[in-house]
């Protein structure tokens, strides 16, 4: 299985600023994803982080607001830009397992709890 860490675990930010969240996986994975979980809600996929190329965004999410990088197979960053209180959420990084007992299983990081004032 893959172990995923995220930094920071939580932050309180001012309106109009930006925050970059880091995600590190302890083994090589095929795909990495970023999700948002708004208070009391389920998870919504923001984008698929592609290694060495632009991320693939889901409907309702754009690169200018949520730029994503994935420079290698085990690391990705998500930036929440020009934040507003509506961006207050938990942001989760996820990775897709390779073949074997964890085939097609997604592992999740502990999440970054963001509060925007």
């Amino acid at each position, binding site marked *: 299985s893959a172990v995923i860490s995220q930094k920071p675990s939580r932050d309180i930010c001012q309106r109009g600023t930006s925050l970059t969240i880091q995600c590190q996986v302890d083994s090589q994975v095929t795909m990495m994803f970023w999700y948002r979980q708004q208070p009391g809600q389920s998870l919504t996929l923001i984008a698929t982080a592609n290694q060495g190329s632009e991320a693939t965004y889901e409907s309702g999410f754009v690169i200018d607001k949520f730029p994503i990088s994935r420079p290698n197979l085990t690391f990705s960053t998500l930036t929440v830009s020009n934040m507003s209180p509506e961006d207050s959420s938990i942001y989760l990084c996820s990775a897709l397992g390779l073949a074997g007992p964890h085939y097609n299983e997604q592992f999740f990081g502990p*999440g970054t709890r963001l509060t925007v004032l």
Partner: protein
Amino acid sequence: AQSVTQLDSQVPVFEEAPVELRCNYSSSVSVYLFWYVQYPNQGLQLLLKYLSGSTLVESINGFEAEFNKSQTSFHLRKPSVHISDTAEYFCAVIAAAGNKLTFGGGTRVLVKP
């Protein structure tokens, strides 16, 4: 595209009583099914999954789920819950040839003493 419906947003249950969390999905292709658990202030953990084979799958902590293709359901059950089972439970599906999870709305289980 797939969709997932968890019919109960909250399920209060007494300790040592049974619990069932309902999950129905919609898909035009074959899918894999998952249940994730999120304990308070923690990330998601995989509880169990169905990929193929036996339609009844079990977790190490007493939960089980049964895949019913005709009913397009994957309900989660536990015969006797503990206080520590208090958490939010998410049902999720992924197309067998795909790579994106679709989550249900979640069911919050509150186990009362």
